[in-house]
């Protein structure tokens, strides 16, 4: 059973546009929701993360929107740049000693100049 569902699988956005990636989860015990960015040939790197006590978190051009009742969260990339072209993964975990992450299937973002 897939714990975290991510969409779309791929996304093409013009430079300066807004990129939106969505994730949904089932386990209401999840209390930590990170987004990871992965460039070809590299490991994933933490981009931004949110906990369910807030509905939105913004860091520069990146914003996470969180809807606890709908069990959904999304990543918004404002003013998308060609350098943002990468694969993005959402994840969810229970913040206990084990810190096990469940990753979404990934979204390949292509920002066209």
């Amino acid at each position: 059973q897939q714990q975290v569902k991510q969409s779309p699988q791929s996304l093409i956005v013009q430079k300066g546009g807004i990129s939106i990636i969505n994730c949904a989860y089932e386990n209401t015990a999840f209390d930590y929701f990170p987004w990871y960015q992965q460039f070809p040939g590299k490991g994933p790197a933490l981009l931004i993360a949110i906990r369910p006590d807030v509905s939105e978190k913004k860091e520069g051009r990146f914003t996470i929107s969180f809807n606890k009742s709908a069990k959904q969260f999304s990543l918004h990339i404002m003013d998308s740049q060609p350098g943002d072209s990468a694969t993005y993964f959402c994840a969810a975990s229970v913040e206990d000693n084990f810190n096990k992450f469940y990753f979404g299937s990934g979204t390949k973002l292509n920002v066209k100049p």
Partner: protein
Amino acid sequence: EAGVAQSPRYKIIEKRQSVAFWCNPISGHATLYWYQQILGQGPKLLIQFQNNGVVDDSQLPKDRFSAERLKGVDSTLKIQPAKLEDSAVYLCASSSKGQANNEQFFGPGTRLTVL
């Protein structure tokens, strides 16, 4: 601060052969993870160590995969014998227990191709 190191970066083997991957986590990180990332999918946890003890290996195909973390630092993941469906990138990650943001730091991965 040095990141998570992995070797080799690439490996090509024939099916039924054996292969081993090595990971050196960030210094002081007690928790080490091995993930399998099949092309077009998200990372899937294979095994998680806390120091040198296994805390989760529920997704590890134990008939062919094994992993160890001697002395609670470096770790090796072994596949014996390999199957075609084992072709994937194997990622190692580490985290510091008690770290406020729960961040896992990933290495560059080892790309395995099984022919």
